[in-house]
């Protein structure tokens, strides 16, 4: 099963402390090494565009979105054997933020990826 984990945070948090970067590095190397983490990326604030479709009208707004309170800061794709394994992978990432980034607030969505990327159903 494949999961996407998205990390949402306040847009004005500033750069992460070196302790966080270091701890995330260690954790991600370990997760890649165990075959759990198969893709990941941070999402940049600049070079962002949003399309909205409302009342039959398509609108384009180019970023950066200084007024946005919360942004998706990054994602990872996990290759797991159970929902709880994905949850545990995400929990570890949040635990690292708790331990190494004082005052940081945010949330983390753990979502199973459906469709062809997921592979055939296993019975």
């Amino acid at each position, binding site marked *: 099963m494949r999961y996407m984990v998205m990390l949402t945070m306040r847009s004005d948090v500033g750069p992460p402390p070196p302790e966080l970067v270091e701890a995330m590095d260690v954790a991600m190397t370990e997760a*890649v090494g165990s*075959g759990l983490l198969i893709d990941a990326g941070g999402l940049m604030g600049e070079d962002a565009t949003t399309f909205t479709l409302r009342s039959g009208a398509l609108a384009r707004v180019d970023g950066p979105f200084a007024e946005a309170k919360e942004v998706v800061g990054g994602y990872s794709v996990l290759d797991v054997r159970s929902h709880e394994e994905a949850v545990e992978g995400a929990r570890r990432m949040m635990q690292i933020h708790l331990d190494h980034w004082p005052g940081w607030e945010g949330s983390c969505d753990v979502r199973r990826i459906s469709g062809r990327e997921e592979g055939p159903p296993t019975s």
Partner: protein
Amino acid sequence: MTTTTHEAVVAVWQLESARVVSGLLRITRDLQLAEDLAQDALVAALESWPDDGIPANPGAWLMTVAKRRAIDTFRRAERHRAQVERLKHELGNDLSETSMDELVDQVDHVEDDVLRLMFLTCHPALTPESRAALTLRLVGGLTTEEIARGFLVKDTAVGQRISRAKRTLAESGATLEMPTGAERTERLDDVMAVIYLVFNEGYAATAGTSWMRTDLCLEALRLARMLAALAPGDAEVHGLQALLELQASRLHARTSPTSEAVLLEDQDRARWDHLLIRRGLAALARAEGTGQPVGAYTVQAAIAACHARARRAEDTDWVRIAALYDLLSAAGDNPVVEVNRAVAHGRAFGPAAGLAVLDAVADDAGAAYGHQWHAVRGDLLSRAGRGTEASAEFRTAASLTRNDAERSLLLRRAESG
């Protein structure tokens, strides 16, 4: 206990068991004891986490509990030994012994332990089936039931296979070791062969009604990723990872919605898993980037990469694939390679060239080459416009395969000639 907590404990266990078991094996030097201690820690987690919540660092929690049990076990043994020693001393004997402090010091050095564990579970003293079962159990953290399901055998058979394997290892005096030089190369080959066997068991089930058993493939892929991370200086481990990522990228394109087998060239390439393809190509680049001479897995991965890079079947670089199969063919006597080489030569240089490769090994056709020799011959004859002969070969192939899905595919081809 709620189902969620139980599943959470199992998930943590699967993520941590290789490290916990290998760490314990380092200090106990006893596979059975190490696994018992690890199981004790798992049971302790199942008992206390539902009430206390999952600890912040569950891996460390499991390891700490298991270490405490290990030390208790040693202390009991120590006390027992001390009594024996006293008796011996009173009888005039004097034996040296490892001190308790030394044992405790050994607990925290866990680097490389997982790789040592893989060398042990793939030890040459064991049969290939035992190696696979023991590796899935101790490195993959799978239950005997899960392994049994993967290999389509009874739980008890897997349980017995694992106990027998542990006994064999104990009797042969095998311990956690980090071989060097030529022996390391050989032992790494053994580990890779086990991972490849597990993958193939899932990828092309030789018997039964299922064309593939995906869970085993994904488990093997995980093991290959682990091995590549644990031995990054060895080119071939990246080659193996590349091969499995690329093969796995086609898993869900290999069967039609009605569960029929779809051959590579007929597969809908939009259904290939492009994330796995990207990972496979990256691993192949790592293998080739080491500058070391590459082995059979890397060459096979390079072949798989030729298919992966072709956006349409007709864009496939068959000339390069034929050259890569020539390399494999020169390296050893392998019926499967010769059959695939015939396919590649047939596509690259025409059916006659492919038939020439097949006919050169015709004397060995039958048992060693099996149904595939006939299936490929049928395909080449069909492409050469020799429909009647082709149908006969497809029917022979269908009568030889034990896979239901493959049989129906072959019979369909026999109809169309």
